[in-house]
């Protein structure tokens, strides 16, 4: 192998590809985002409804 040729193992992997190649990061995002934006935000709003006298 020529010395000036890049070693493919050391080639910098683009950021988005690293994100997409990490199933557990995607799992974290895919669970956290709807939990915060849909469930927690929704639960916070429902708990603020005053109880009927």
């Amino acid at each position, binding site marked *: 192998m020529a010395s000036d040729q890049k070693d493919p193992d050391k080639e910098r992997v683009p950021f*988005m*590809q690293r*994100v*997409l*190649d990490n*199933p*557990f990061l*995607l*799992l974290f*995002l*895919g*669970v956290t*985002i*709807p*939990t915060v*934006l*849909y*469930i927690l*935000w*929704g*639960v916070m*709003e*429902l708990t603020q*409804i005053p109880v009927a006298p």
Partner: protein
Amino acid sequence: MSEATFRTCPTTGLKVDLNAQKLIKANAVAAVVFLAIGGLFGLTVALTRWPAVHLLPADWFYLALTAHGLDVLLLWIIFFEIAVLYFASSTLLNCRIAAPRWGWVAFWMMLAGGLITNVAVLQGQSTVMFTSYPPMMAAQHFYLGLILFAVGALVAVGIFFGTLVIAREERTYEGSIPLVTFGALTAAIIAVFTLASGAVILIPTWLWSMGLISTIDPLMYKLVWWAMGHSSQQINVSAHVAVWYAIAAMLFGARPLSEKVSRGAFLLYILFLQLASAHHLLVEPGLSSEWKVFNTSYAMYLAVLGSMIHGLTVPGSIEAAQRRRGFDKGFFEWLRKAPWGNPAFSGMFMSLVMFGFLGGISGVVMGTEQINIIMHNTLYVPGHFHGTVVAGTTLAFMAITYLLIPLIFQREIRFPRLAKWQPYLFGLGVAGISLFMMGAGTLGVSRRHWDITFADAPLDFSYPEAAFLMLALNGLSAIAAALGGLFYVVVVVASVFFGRKVEGRVALEAPAGKSAVASYGSSESLKIPGTLLLVGVFFVAFVLYYFVNWKYLSDIWPMR
């Protein structure tokens, strides 16, 4: 250490772990059994809604509607999705499946849960609809069955993630996972949120049914339940898009137009698709417009963008592959010369078209807070989701079954002529069901009423005559779809149990092989004029229909 035994598929060259193969078979067979049961209940529901037939008495109608929703929306779909997850991880990654014994634990938990809940419904004490909103209370074992099913499915999803880890550690693939596996990963991620939400709300509801908790807040229940109820349909969307890519790759050797773009579209699903659950709560007074509009109109549109990208890239990848094979004349030779007699292709392509035109467009319309008010809780809602879950997901799953039977069950398809016509009959019926229910919903017919004539009601109310016509056409469409479903079950059962053993290579329409379906790589051609024209037609239909609904809203909401 691995104790796996593999065989090599003579057609695709893929290594198949025999433990995974058995689990795929078991889950797929259970799925088809529940489809048959749930489909039969669905036919009785449609025939009851048809005023001239009005088949069932009220109590049986609601019982059948509960069982229909449970069996097809949850059991058929999720059993099949677990089969897809095992196929997309173990088989496509040439890898042993993680913890196969736990796979069987998951399977038996899901099966036991499904059977227990069905028994509870058939006993007549759990006619609470698929949504089971409190304060309606079902029998204790109704909730127990659902919890068992959800936990079993969660274990199966864990096995999928475990298999991804094994494949990476044992370096059974190079670079990134194949796109079909990435689509399955998307489905699995949404499944974790879905099933966990289901467990979170159903466990206290079960305790409530046992008298251990005094009340369940109905609105809180609705909020969390829909994180399961609607997100479970988003698992379907991700899974059936993965199936579209798989069929395109296996039949045509088609590669995605751009791996990055298709993965980006799946990422939009992962981040935003579950938020669409909020459209079920658009008329609830306890939630703010900010919450409603953000979760539906803003975030959901990003997920819709993902679907539109797939709607371009899946047919585009087929067009590019067909043009490479010489079908290059005009706009549509690639489509005319496609294997329309192969049920795997015809089912997949109809699923793609109907999911976009029927389920997709109506979903965006319904997800808009303002327009939603004219069709909320009308028959439009089941019309929409029969366009997504049945015309989209079920038809796609039926289509890939025609490839899985020879490749995984290693049997030839029995009754090939019946199989050839099956997707057309089922597709035609389902398109009718979706369209005519949406038509009835637009005329105001309520979603779950047993009798639209209100024959025994103390106060008169009349729907327009056209609504009766819509429900009659819906009934006829349901008969066609039920026949199509019956053909599917007959072909699958006959092939799996009595089909001739496949010896040697399976004749697929095109050079399929391992390369397209099980590796990373984009198509090198972007010459897709036919697909671009079809996408243009879709956009025109989308814009017109969207604005027509604003016009409807302005007619019923005379603020001058």
